[in-house]
């Protein structure tokens, strides 16, 4: 009995290779190249360390996906190219084919699903305000009339503009090119607060020279599901990516990697973020899915 079961299991485990390749996998096979987009300062998801090399939690997820592609498509010499992107051009670059995969802490939203597809969720986050203690901003409503930095092209930027319109508040929104520029605006006194995912805020703060001057405050405004981004209408590639992520999460590998990036010293300065796994995340690891919050 057992050998037969084993054979059956093996047979069922043979992946999509048996079918014809389509979409991204076809493109990758034909050109022997896969292009990943990375972020330069989305700590600790995907960012440049002291030696200007790309590192990060979700970046490692991307590399694992590439390994899986190499194994399943039998392409051990698959070439990998990594190019820097930012929040404003990531969707355009995905749509026009410049990048094939992006795992950087991008939020899965129904709006974006009209243009691209998302993998299984890799993490959850909430958006909050980072501000100097002496700025007097405690609650989210305190931002009225102030200058708020936010990274251009993110869900946070869209949220801020909507908030200003819906609540008839005057907001001076400083849309920056990427997270580090947003923090720079706050540091140099050009912005009163920086509105962004809590993990990003926590990481930027942990690495700041003058961290005692800052505080993360305000009622969390949005809950977000972060996932890898890939092209729309490409079920074969999505199935592969989802498989890799689900396997990582159910096997405990994701939890170990999480500890590596959130509970241990990380480059470039060996800072520890000290953000243990939430109950929600543990649930997610038990039941991988690709649901978003909107």
């Amino acid at each position, binding site marked *: 009995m057992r050998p037969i079961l084993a054979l059956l299991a093996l047979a069922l485990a043979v992946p999509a290779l048996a079918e014809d390749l389509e979409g991204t996998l076809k493109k990758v096979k034909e050109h022997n190249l896969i292009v990943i987009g990375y972020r330069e300062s989305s700590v600790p998801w995907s960012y440049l360390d002291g030696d200007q090399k790309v590192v990060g939690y979700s970046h490692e997820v991307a590399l694992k996906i590439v390994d899986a592609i190499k194994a399943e498509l039998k392409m051990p010499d698959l070439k990998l190219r990594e190019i820097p992107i930012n929040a*404003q051009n990531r*969707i*355009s670059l995905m*749509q026009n084919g410049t990048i094939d995969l992006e795992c950087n802490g991008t939020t899965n939203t129904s709006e974006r699903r*009209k*243009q691209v597809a998302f993998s299984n969720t890799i993490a959850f986050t909430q958006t909050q305000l980072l501000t100097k203690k002496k700025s007097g901003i405690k609650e989210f409503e305190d931002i009225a009339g102030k200058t708020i930095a936010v990274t*251009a*092209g993110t869900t946070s930027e*869209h949220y801020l*503009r*909507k908030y*200003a*319109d819906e609540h008839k508040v005057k907001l001076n929104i*400083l*849309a*920056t*090119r990427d997270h580090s520029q947003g923090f720079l605006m706050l540091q*140099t*006194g*050009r912005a009163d607060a920086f509105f962004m995912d809590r993990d990003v805020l926590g990481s930027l703060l942990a690495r700041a020279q003058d961290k005692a001057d800052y505080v993360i405050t305000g009622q969390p405004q949005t809950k977000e599901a972060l996932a890898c981004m890939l092209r729309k209408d490409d079920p074969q590639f999505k199935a592969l990516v989802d498989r890799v992520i689900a396997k990582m999460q159910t096997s405990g590998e994701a939890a170990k990697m999480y500890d590596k990036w959130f509970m241990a010293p990380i480059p470039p300065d060996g800072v520890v973020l000290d953000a243990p796994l939430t109950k929600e995340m543990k649930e997610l690891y038990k039941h991988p899915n690709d649901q978003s919050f909107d």
Partner: protein
Amino acid sequence: MYHWHWGIFLSPTGTGETYLGWLFSGLGLTVALGLVAWLLALVLGAAVGIARTVPNRVVRALAGAYVEVLRNVPLMVQLFTAYFVVPELLPPELGDAVKRMNPVAQQFLCLGLYTSARIAEQVRSGIESLAGHQRSSALALGLTLPQAYRHVLLPLAFRIILPPLSSEFMTVFKNSAVASMIGLLELAAQGRQLVDYTSQPYEAFIAVTALYLALNLSALRVMRFVEAKTRVPGFATAK
């Protein structure tokens, strides 16, 4: 297959305006930025250009340094430097005040200074092309140097340099797009916002390009009008 959707321009943005409204606000900012910067550049550039032709060597050298520095560093580097470096080098209270200043004001100052260096060069070459007999004739007639400049050299020099001056007028609107790098929501930046929000890059960029073309043509019209009004009959402004 790309899905064309020209109706997006009239769709609401979710923040109380239409996308077309965003584009027009960007256009307005571009025009305002360009005009004010160009006026500043005209005044400053004329002054510096004249300064480069006076007999005083120190004045000439200072004006020369001003022009050389501003012309040999890319505009974008200058904008970033004005935005990030200058406030840090000023005493704290002044620096903070500058940081609080509306970025539009900062950018038009920087754009104005950059353009003024280019105009200074044109003014200088216009004056120098007259340096010959116009200048000596004026002096021979008993005019002092300042009078010679005011009544003879400058009016003629400006008519000579009107062509390059007007192309500078059109250039300043194009250069204002560089200010989008610092987050200013002028026309080019609004174009990118549109792409970000609607994911219809072709429509957005075609609209923005069309607006720049329209802007350029209008500027050209204005300058041609000015040229026609100031032409001195019988004096060849340019062969």
